[in-house]
């Protein structure tokens, strides 16, 4: 059974999609890598970005980390603070 997760977008990813949050439908027990694949399918423009990381609950997540429906998920394009 699929579930829907919300993904926070910032900077270039927000500009490319025109949205600050997007919903993604994922199979049960999906991992970060599948979330990223699905986002790339839904928003092909993301391919132009140098790198994309995912944060889960405010922490950088590995590709094999499980994604839960109530997690706070964010897409992290290359940072440029300072």
């Amino acid at each position: 059974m699929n579930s829907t997760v919300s993904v926070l977008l910032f900077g270039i990813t927000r500009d490319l999609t025109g949205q600050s949050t997007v919903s993604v439908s994922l199979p049960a027990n999906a991992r970060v890598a599948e979330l990223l694949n699905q986002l790339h399918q839904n928003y092909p423009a993301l391919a132009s970005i140098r790198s994309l990381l995912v944060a889960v609950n405010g922490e950088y997540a590995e590709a094999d980390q499980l994604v839960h429906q109530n997690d706070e998920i964010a897409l992290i394009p290359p940072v440029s603070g300072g």
Partner: protein
Amino acid sequence: MIALTSEPIDVTSALYELQSAQAGAIDIFLGVVRDNTQQRPVDRLEYEAYDRMAIGEMQKIADDANQRWPLLRCLIIHRKGTLQIGEIAVLIGVATAHRADAFEACRYIIDTIKQTVPIWKKEIFMDGEIWVNAHP
């Protein structure tokens, strides 16, 4: 002390925070909005942050620095929103007994901020704009 703020960064109050009777050295680094990027004139910058995580990552960097060097005080203040030329985007302040530690910790903190903290900078030129580092 860690802060992410929409208000101008006040160096005088930062200095006040950094003072300690045991401090022999204080290093303050300021990242400032400059008027050009590779000779292209910049009009202004816009900084955007994933606030919760940015604060968490800055705190991790401060904790790391505190592990690596004997810091008496450590201050990281990052600005967000629209910044004009000459405005301070980030202030790192470190107080230590001896100067080598202050320089090394301050440099470590700013270098690491630029690698890990989810803050994004858009350069706005007279004729366009670009998210810094976003594209290959």
